[in-house]
């Protein structure tokens, strides 16, 4: 498969490939705009997504040194205010902070990129990768463990983070991925990293990208898991249904979908903007 000349791998497009090859083809290779509703209830999802984006921006502003009190004046919605209170009271470890940090490395001749919400390097040399989650449900750990994000971010930091460690790559053992849930501040999901995981991730990502490049167009088939299609804008194109599924019915076994309701969520936009 020839990918578009400006294509770059991200956790989101790799996840799409894993979830449904056809979706990867339509969304990331053909870049097909297909404006169906992704999931219901559409207005609530949109509001949640906007609140998530605002929360991320405020977190960024706080991390570059804007006073919390000044930022708190901008809260005009109770759920966001609750998240903000939680954020304010979480005790981030001491250390150098790199909010909204972009990283890149080469994967099968293409760039693999990610934008992390916060990299925090402690005085003891630990490298903590934070991701703020603003979904209403806390996703089961085993689901998060299998997400591409959990593999791509620590891997990329180990690969491409030397600039933040006095020119030396971070040893995998010092890297940790932390999902911090704005609605569940006391129960962050933490994933330690080590050399075995790093090697496994390297082999896995390389293999995944290699598979994508080796497949012919007709091999990007529809997912056998039709449940995916209820939350996918291409369902009419694939003859996989009419109505968008409701996020309330989302199967827990599939984990929580991204908190953004959109076809291209703000995390993806951040990742692909360059």
């Amino acid at each position, binding site marked *: 498969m020839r990918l578009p000349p400006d294509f770059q791998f991200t956790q989101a497009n790799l996840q799409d490939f894993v979830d449904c090859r056809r979706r990867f083809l339509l969304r990331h290779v053909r870049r*097909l705009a297909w404006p169906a509703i992704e999931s219901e209830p559409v207005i609530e999802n949109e509001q949640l997504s906007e609140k998530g984006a605002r929360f991320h*921006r405020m977190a960024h502003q706080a991390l570059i040194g804007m006073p919390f009190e000044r930022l708190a004046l901008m809260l005009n919605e109770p759920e966001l205010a609750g998240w903000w209170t939680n954020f304010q009271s979480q005790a981030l470890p001491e250390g150098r902070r790199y909010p909204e940090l972009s990283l890149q490395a080469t994967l099968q001749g293409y*760039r693999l990129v990610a934008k992390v919400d916060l990299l925090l390097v402690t005085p003891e040399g630990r490298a903590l990768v934070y991701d703020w989650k603003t979904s209403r449900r806390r996703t089961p750990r085993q689901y998060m463990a299998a997400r591409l994000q959990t593999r791509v971010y620590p891997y990329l930091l180990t690969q491409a983070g030397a600039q933040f460690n006095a020119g030396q790559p971070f040893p995998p053992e010092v890297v940790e991925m932390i999902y911090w849930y704005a609605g569940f501040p006391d129960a962050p999901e933490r994933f330690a990293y080590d050399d075995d995981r790093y090697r496994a991730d390297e082999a896995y990502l390389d293999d995944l990208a290699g598979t994508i490049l080796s497949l012919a167009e007709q091999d990007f088939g529809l997912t056998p898991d039709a449940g995916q299609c209820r939350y996918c804008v291409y369902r009419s194109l694939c003859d996989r249904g009419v109505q968008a599924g409701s996020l309330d019915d989302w199967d827990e076994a599939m984990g929580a979908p991204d908190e953004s309701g959109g076809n291209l969520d703000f995390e993806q936009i951040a990742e692909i903007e360059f």
Partner: protein
Amino acid sequence: MFSFMGEITLSPPQAELARLPVESKIFLEGPDGSGKTTAGVARLLGLLERGVPGASILLLVPQRSLGQPYLHALRTASLPPGSPVALHTLSGLAQRMVELYWPLVAEAAGFAHPDMPPVFLTLETAQYYLARLVRPLFDEGFFASITLDRNRLYSQILDNLNKSAVVGFAHTQIGQRLVSAWGGEPGQARVYQDAQECASRFRQYCLEHNLLDFSLQVELFVRYLWPDEGCRGALLETYRHLIVENLEEDVPVTHDLLAEWLPHLDSCLLIYDQEAGYRSFLGADPRSAYRLKALCPQRVTFTGSFVTSPMVIALGECLGRALQTGSQAPASPPPGTSETSDSLPAYQAALSFEVQRFYPQMLDWVAGQVAQLVQDEGVPPEEIAILAPFLGDALRFSLANRLERYGIPARSHRPSRSLREQPPVQCLLTLTYLAHPGWALPALPTQFDLAYALMQSLEGMDLVRAQLLAEKALLRVDGQPRLLPFERVKADLQERVTYRLGERYEHLRQWLEGYAQAPAQELDHFLGRLFGEVLSQPGFGFHANLDAGEAAANLVESAQKFRRVAAVGLADLGKPVGQEYLEMVQDGVIAAQYLRSWRGEAQGAVLLAPAYTFLMSNRPVEVQFWLDVGSRSWYERLYQPLTQPHVLSRNWPEGKHWTDDDEYKTSQEALYRLALGLLARCRRRVYLGLSELGEQGYEQRGLLLRAFQRLLRAAPQEASGV
């Protein structure tokens, strides 16, 4: 030394520039095509290879397309992992910083709600708000002496504000500057005062509602954020290395900013294209750019061209002289270079033309020549550009059709295609009226609109059946449009339409009626549902129709953006945002112009583009076709009664009157730069499409045509006139 050097071929001066120590501040100048950008790319890759973190490098470009060669290199070169290089335009950087630092500066900048987030306006949403403010003023006699489409008046008012921001003068001085340079009939001074009043009211409205158009974003950045220690400190700390491409195409406030920024940087490379400045109508100012040369200790000049053949260079020299000689004697051949030993001009092989009587004949000739180039000479289609001063729908369609007959695909670069002109969008708008009967203007939709929508939306529906059905099915109940159930259509018509199509019609009708009975949703959500649940399902016209999907997506995106921005000012009017959007689309205020369909570099397709757009994409081709050579549009400014780009520049002396002579001189200069700029992006040959009668059927004898005539008269034998 550099491993990437095997990946790009560099001339010795380019390699030398790339190898200069990391801590170098370089001003690089040279003509188009002399290899400056390649040197810039090599310098960038060299910095990365020498361990400079990508995130500490900022690539600043006047428009994003000019960053393409850098992006391409960053994607393809084998570079070490790390943080990516940033690419920004001034406005992109401004928007990003405003968004981040808003809480710190909003109050000082005069915004009424500093605790609410800013709302960034696009060109069309800015135009929308401006239209709302200005429309009532027309009744008060504003612009009474002007006959021009209102949307063009709005865009000129915004343009004035943008000029004030990028040139760096207070927006309250717009009128006064225009008036003081005006020496014609006195009524025009009133027009300029009206334009000032509109600009001031708009600015005030923006401040009251946290709205940021382009001009306010730039002003906020330049006047409040850059002087702010926190914001400036963050920029200075983040970006230690700067590469600025096409410095001459950028605006004076960018140059001011750079002048303050340069002393703090570890390195910089400023790239300046001599004889360019194509974007002066947007505020680009080569003279302002050139002062930065004095701030760079290392100054490098490239000469010659890596792009054009010696014949094209010779053509450029001769044409340049012919343009400069105006109506004087025929251009004499240049000393030495431009004449071959047997007295044939050296540019002979670089120029082909044929004079036709009528415009369509000329287009036939162009298509025939393209076919010959592609099919007989093996020129790849993407190496051919067909250029005209303007590229209207009719011309684009005629050319694409003719090329298609030869089996040659074409793509068009036309940044002003309005979404509502697209059939799938027209269909969606018609169906929107039917689903929101209260929103429809009295006569909408018409029977024709409905027939057209049925043809688009129901698979297998032809125009004849659609018209027959529309004639009977479109009802007006209390003045509101309604659709008749299929079962109530007369039996003979049902039969004629067929039951299969009737079923589809009925499915669509019921869906619309069901929707209309429930509380109305946001317009973009409605459109998304209509598209996903009906029109793109099997049996309907958008199913697997990728073009329709794209057009619908553009409309949905436009409506969504509008909702997010316009809701701010509509809350007190009690009018649904969707209804307002539809009215603005009908009015042409919202044109929903989208770039998505011609983003990217289509391989294997001939490019159809307006000349300036091609120029600013800065991508040379083997062969160019120039159409409408006799047209005055190659150099004449558009009629802009509310603005004047030259007078609003920094170079215009205060109080000096703009005269016809100034107008003529600037037109000539613009044409000279444009023609030579195009030739600098042509490797091998230019074809002139000449017709005695232009597209509108009139004879045309503009300056460019006359220059070619002079040039050809001077030649002993006409170049490749066929």
